[in-house]
């Protein structure tokens, strides 16, 4: 299990937002959004805050850290 997990896919679905829309608003590529949603890439702190801001939730609702997880 990865050390950093996220609920972006669920939060995005609730807002009927596409991966491309989220990517455009955060300023990353759609491929990066896909990688983050699949827990294959942990974004920088700045990007994580931007994602949370765009989705309108606190950071910890978007991303969770599991110290037993694998980096």
């Amino acid at each position, binding site marked *: 299990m990865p050390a950093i997990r996220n609920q972006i896919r669920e939060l995005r679905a609730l807002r009927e937002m596409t991966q491309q829309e989220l990517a455009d608003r955060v300023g990353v590529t759609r*491929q*990066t959004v896909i*990688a983050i949603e699949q827990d*294959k890439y942990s974004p*920088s702190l700045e*990007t994580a805050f931007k994602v949370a801001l765009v989705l309108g939730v606190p950071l910890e609702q978007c991303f969770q850290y599991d110290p037993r997880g694998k980096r």
Partner: protein
Amino acid sequence: MATSLSYREKSLYASLAAELVVYGPYFFLHQQNSVNKVAGMIIGIIVLQTVLQLVIALVTRNRVTDERDRLIELRGYRAGYLTIATLMVLGLGMLWFHAAVGHMRLDNRMMGLHFLSVFFGMLVIADITKTATQIVAYRRAL
């Protein structure tokens, strides 16, 4: 889930194709010992890369690059550097060894061209390693 290629990925595939098309004949068809072939190859790679990258830039609407692209680029350069450093140590070691035991004379033109090709080959291998590492990183999502 379908993941279409990003601008950077398309650019990398084009680079790899250009490198294989230009460097392949040079090394595998044994055209090394000719200054004209080396010059032709250098001009060929510059022209082909320019044309391919121009076409990709023109046909790709979204040319955004981000932190993940930069991270993957750094991984590629690290792999390329490790490759060239290893090959250079091996190459210089072999050169030193052969010169020390008197197996070869280093003062003739053919030997100069031979070593030009050997060290140029190292650069090419390192460059292809860099590009391939980046492509693999993109395919594995990182």
